[in-house]
């Protein structure tokens, strides 16, 4: 068992990790930038070290300072949380070289899954469905048409050097393929100086569904079912839930089994999330693996009753996971709303500043994960996540009702938050029916 852990993060996830450690009897060291000096969670750590100025390049992203802090405080391990250094392979390697346990996967698995091309190959090897496509540059029109007919329309043409939508075309039939191919090529040539394009099946209005998995050092790998994170705005998740309302138990098992096959293939250890696109026919396609704990992990904790951060720490300490798949059940429905210090009425502009009134929701079925409180000042230096509200109820309609009343109770003044935006979404007919996809927010609000 680890006995002393440095938390290389800040905000609600730093507090989340401190909580898990305290319950396990593990000592904690908090590191903080000068902007977070007065954060209340820093007081809860057994020791705290200032590592730099507010700029995260000089603090939370600064590897030498974090390693130095770990050395002078004599910790066994570092928990990177999410974001910052959590998926930085070099950081994980340096921890290892310094004799400090990195609470996360082995460097090799991390590197493999961090590379999108390698991860796709691995998925295919593990017979996990990926989005069908040309597996590299597509040749001439004839080859493109043959492939398009093989994988089935609609397809999307993407520039190999691409990004930002340029050199991208969605095509629905043979007739438009020719024109689209040449248009995409010229656009790519102009934008990137490189005209190569590839083809991929275009998944129409997909849901974003991800599977929480966990593996120990002795080859035991289990899943904790899925989360549906289709409520996104500009690829930022806003609301997550478990289970996915579209899946029945059979679909769920197929999806989860695919995730387990993939992480076994990668010789993975510790927590990971395997992300998929789910189409309207409940076919799923692997996208990528996140090799860390996620912001939305609490919804999984609520439906399964398992503390994922504690498992991360136990596994990193070399403990075998006594848990077997049959011991992991899911009960009821959990929903999480991310409350950001952003103004929905002003294009979600950040809204930093001091909090002069803070009255949090509570009561049955409500969990709050936050480092905020009245008197705390939201700094403009970091991301705008202010609090996560998670509700758990027997059924989805009850979970929605509980979340609505919790959001209505939540009073944070004078800063603007995403509470009204979350309420609008929760009241939307399509959300209530569970009929949403990753384009839902952009199309409806």
């Amino acid at each position: 068992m680890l006995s002393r852990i440095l938390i290389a993060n800040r905000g609600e996830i730093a507090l989340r990790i401190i909580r898990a450690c305290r319950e396990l009897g593990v000592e904690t060291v908090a590191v903080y930038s000068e902007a977070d000096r007065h954060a209340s969670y820093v007081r809860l750590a057994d020791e705290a070290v200032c590592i730099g100025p507010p700029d995260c390049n000089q603090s939370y992203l600064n590897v030498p300072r974090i390693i130095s802090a770990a050395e002078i405080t004599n910790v066994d391990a570092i928990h990177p949380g999410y974001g910052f250094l959590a998926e930085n392979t070099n950081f994980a390697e340096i921890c290892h070289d310094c004799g400090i346990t990195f609470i996360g996967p082995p460097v090799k698995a991390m590197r493999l899954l961090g590379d999108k091309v390698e991860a796709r190959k691995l998925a295919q090897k593990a017979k996990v469905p990926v989005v069908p496509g040309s597996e590299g540059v597509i040749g001439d029109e004839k080859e493109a048409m043959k492939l398009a007919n093989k994988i089935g329309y609609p397809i999307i043409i993407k520039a190999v050097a691409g990004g930002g939508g340029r050199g991208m075309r969605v095509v629905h039939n043979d007739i438009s393929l020719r024109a689209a191919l040449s248009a995409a090529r010229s656009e790519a040539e102009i934008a990137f100086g490189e005209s190569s394009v590839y083809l991929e099946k275009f998944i129409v209005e997909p849901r974003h569904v991800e599977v929480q998995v966990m593996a120990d050092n002795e080859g035991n790998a289990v899943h904790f079912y899925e989360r549906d994170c289709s409520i996104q705005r500009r690829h930022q998740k806003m609301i997550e839930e478990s289970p996915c309302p579209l899946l029945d138990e059979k679909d769920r098992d197929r999806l989860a089994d695919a995730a387990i096959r993939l992480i076994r293939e990668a010789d993975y250890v510790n927590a990971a999330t395997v992300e998929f696109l789910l189409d309207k026919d409940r076919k799923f396609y692997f996208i990528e693996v996140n090799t860390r704990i996620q912001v939305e992990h609490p919804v999984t904790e609520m439906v399964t009753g398992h503390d994922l951060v504690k498992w991360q720490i136990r596994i990193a300490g070399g403990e075998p996971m006594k848990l077997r798949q049959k011991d992991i059940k899911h009960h009821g429905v959990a929903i999480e709303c991310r409350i950001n210090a952003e103004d929905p009425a002003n294009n979600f502009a950040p809204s930093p500043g001091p909090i002069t009134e803070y009255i949090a929701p509570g009561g049955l079925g409500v969990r709050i994960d936050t480092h905020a409180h009245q008197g705390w000042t939201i700094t403009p230096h970091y991301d705008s996540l202010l609090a996560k509200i998670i509700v758990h109820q027997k059924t989805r309609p009850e979970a929605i009702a509980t979340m609505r009343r919790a959001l209505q109770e939540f009073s944070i003044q004078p800063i603007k938050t995403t509470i009204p935006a979350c309420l609008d979404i929760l009241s939307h007919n399509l959300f209530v029916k569970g009929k949403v996809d990753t384009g839902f927010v952009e199309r409806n609000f």
Partner: protein
Amino acid sequence: MADKDADVQKIQELIKIMKENDLVKIDIKHGDDQISLRRAKPPQPQTVATPFVTALPGALPGAAMTPEQTSTAAAPDTAHPEEELLEIKSPIVGTFYEAPSPDSDPYVETGTHVNSQTVVGIVEAMKVMNEIKAEVTGTVVERCVTNGQAIEYGQVLFKIKPD
């Protein structure tokens, strides 16, 4: 329950006061009752960073590991404006050494006159010895850390009376 609680609560309150006011020491005595508290590393309120000449060697890989432009800090101690002392603060996290080797004399002592290029100590971070220069001109009036002490970013190492 009463007495134990009272002590724990009082100590928690005192620790809060210490943290809020950056105190390192509180002693209270009432007859036979006594409470003594010490904090090793008082956080310092702010830092004006200036470039630091001894860079970390680029021995470690990765973007975040490029040779670091660290810094010393020298700012008037606003808490004691009457003394007008300058503070030399640590630009990095690590272990402080007063001398280049265990057998050597300390770089500086109370009374030593320093200029901006004078090395005042070393902070070891990830096995690298980082020389700390004074960056100001004046006389050392106080050493705020002990040899071998773990120090955090922005921690005051020396107080300097300017010329």
